[in-house]
């Protein structure tokens, strides 16, 4: 295996990077599960107000890196990380940075929709409640309504906010999870294959939503579907066997990739 490839390859930064500030910076990040490294020496700059997608074959480490950004890997005892991840210039592993607040600033949507077995209202209200974002009941209702609207779910559920979140369809549940994530006013939204459990119509709606949200949030999305990456993201990073192989503007990565491996993956030679 060619071990030379390391970091960002394109000599020029992606076009988009010039237009937007950098939100997330990873410097030489290696994540271990036990003794095995799932990600090796990753260095990348992710911009704000844009959608960056991570693509690559199964087991290449993209989800692992995603989970490292909001320190969800901390919940796995055998996982450890070397290197640094900075958000807005601040190291997320800094001693005085509270992981609980980090996760409120960096929201996450999971592959399989996981609404709490509570009412729709309570699902969205959960985050604001625990972080004390609402001063009173009216505030809370405003936040919930606003989040549901932004997630494009409000019209469908406004009459049954007290119904259980699990009673919704798959696509609605995922939008509920997105509303839940938005409700705490994050700056970054991480999405781990958010549409892989959904049908094409629901997928299309979520992709529309992502497109709207990117105007205000930094969105990082892991996806198995290259077509989705092409549709939805402005930047694409290709991972392979724990390494970042290539990172650039989406159109360039898909039409004129710099690395042979990228080319092979995109044309379906493997993965």
């Amino acid at each position, binding site marked *: 295996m060619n071990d030379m490839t390391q970091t960002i390859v394109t000599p020029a930064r992606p076009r988009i990077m010039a237009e937007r500030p950098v939100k997330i910076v990873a410097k030489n990040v290696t994540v271990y599960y036990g003794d095995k490294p799932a990600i090796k020496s990753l260095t990348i700059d992710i911009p704000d107000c844009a959608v960056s997608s991570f693509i690559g074959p199964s087991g290449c480490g993209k989800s692992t890196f995603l989970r490292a950004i*909001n320190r*969800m890997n901390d*919940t796995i005892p055998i996982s450890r990380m070397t290197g640094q991840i900075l958000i807005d210039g601040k190291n997320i592993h800094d001693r005085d940075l509270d992981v*609980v*607040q*980090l*996760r*409120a*600033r960096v*929201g*996450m949507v*999971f592959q*399989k929709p*996981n*609404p*709490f*077995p*509570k009412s729709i209202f309570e699902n969205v209200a*959960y*985050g604001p409640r*625990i*972080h004390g974002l609402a001063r009173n009941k009216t505030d809370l209702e405003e936040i919930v309504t606003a989040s549901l609207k932004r997630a494009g779910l409000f019209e469908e559920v406004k009459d049954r906010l007290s119904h259980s979140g*699990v009673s919704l369809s798959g696509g609605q549940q995922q939008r509920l*999870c997105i509303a*839940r*994530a938005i409700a*705490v006013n994050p700056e970054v939204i991480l999405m781990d294959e958010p549409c892989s459990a959904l049908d094409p119509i629901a997928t299309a709606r979520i992709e529309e939503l992502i497109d709207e949200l990117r105007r205000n949030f930094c969105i990082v999305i892991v996806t198995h579907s290259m077509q989705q990456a092409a549709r939805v993201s402005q930047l694409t990073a290709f991972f392979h066997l724990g390494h970042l192989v290539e990172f650039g503007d989406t159109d360039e990565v898909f039409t004129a990739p710099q690395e042979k491996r990228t080319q092979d993956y995109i044309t379906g030679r493997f993965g």
Partner: protein
Amino acid sequence: MIVWTVLVVALVAGSAFMLGQSRARGLRLAGGPMLHSLPSYHGLYLAAGALSAAILAAVVMAFATGPQSLAVPLSAGLAGVAAVRTLLPRISTLFRARNVFERFVTVLLVACSAVAILATVGIVFSVLFESLRFFSEVPVTSFLFGTVWAPTAEPPSFGIVPLLVGTLLITLIAILVAGPLGLLSAIYMAEYASPKLRGIAKPLLEMLAGVPTVVLGFFAALTVAPLIRSAGQSIGLPVASESALAAGLVMGMMIVPLISSLSDDIINAVPQSLRDGSYAMGATHSETIRRVVLPAALPGIVSAFMLAISRAIGETMIVVMAAGLAANLTFNPFAAVTTITVQIATLLVGDQEFDSAKTLSAFALGFVLFLFTLTLNFIALRIVQRYREQYD
């Protein structure tokens, strides 16, 4: 004689087996067509037939002439031999010995399962039957709603309200103790404890669960009750020497392992995706547990509590040894009360004129107890079933 009978039966069955097997082998060696079943199955077929005949004959004889008579092993032997003679000719190459034997085995298995059902039937019927006899003497209403329990008085009165109250009081104390202790231990073990700590805590709880109730009763009566009594006296509180508090406390500790292990299983069954969803929102561990995990686990935990209550209600030895005999109608935990199980025990442990209302009342109590625990268990099971698909 029983030993002889067993020997005879074993001998008959064993020789039948050998005979059948060798006969089948003989057929095989003759160079003819293949046997349908292995020779051993032919042996088993013969042995099964001989065994059944022998046992049947022995049982019938035992009923007829008493289990100690010589006729029992004798008839067993004769029946066995007769069976062999009748069944032997059927052995041939075409004979499906294995199938016949397997049918025999199936019948045996069914019979064994039937016994298990018979136990339930037996319980219900025996208790029901005797209870009905009781109710023919004492009206149901005075039993269920009477507030005086004095079966040995002249005239006796059989009102179970004091017993119900006593049972309830002690059970309540037990749950107040066991509920928090059991649930919090389960939460700690499932969510916070290191594997090493879990490895110590779980066996510890299993050890507590394995302590026989007579031991707990001894501890309650001879150590806990006097302790509570002197503690009460030192602050000027009158505490009976057989207080409900003592019995309830120890009974609570008895059911802590039950609540703990059931809750542990239930909490562990809550999908990790729910926890992940909560962590990703920036919730602390305890917030996740209190607001997401426990509500999701609630039906299971309620069910666990119900099972624990059912167990506490049906417990006998702790209350027999540590709780009182006097049917006091009170909610005072420092007083001595009695429970349904204590009364069942005291009424029946002693001389038995089986038909007196006094003795039969014990069965009526048993019936009430049975209904209670059955209902609780049934509801507990139902709750778990209904809410199981909640987050699938």
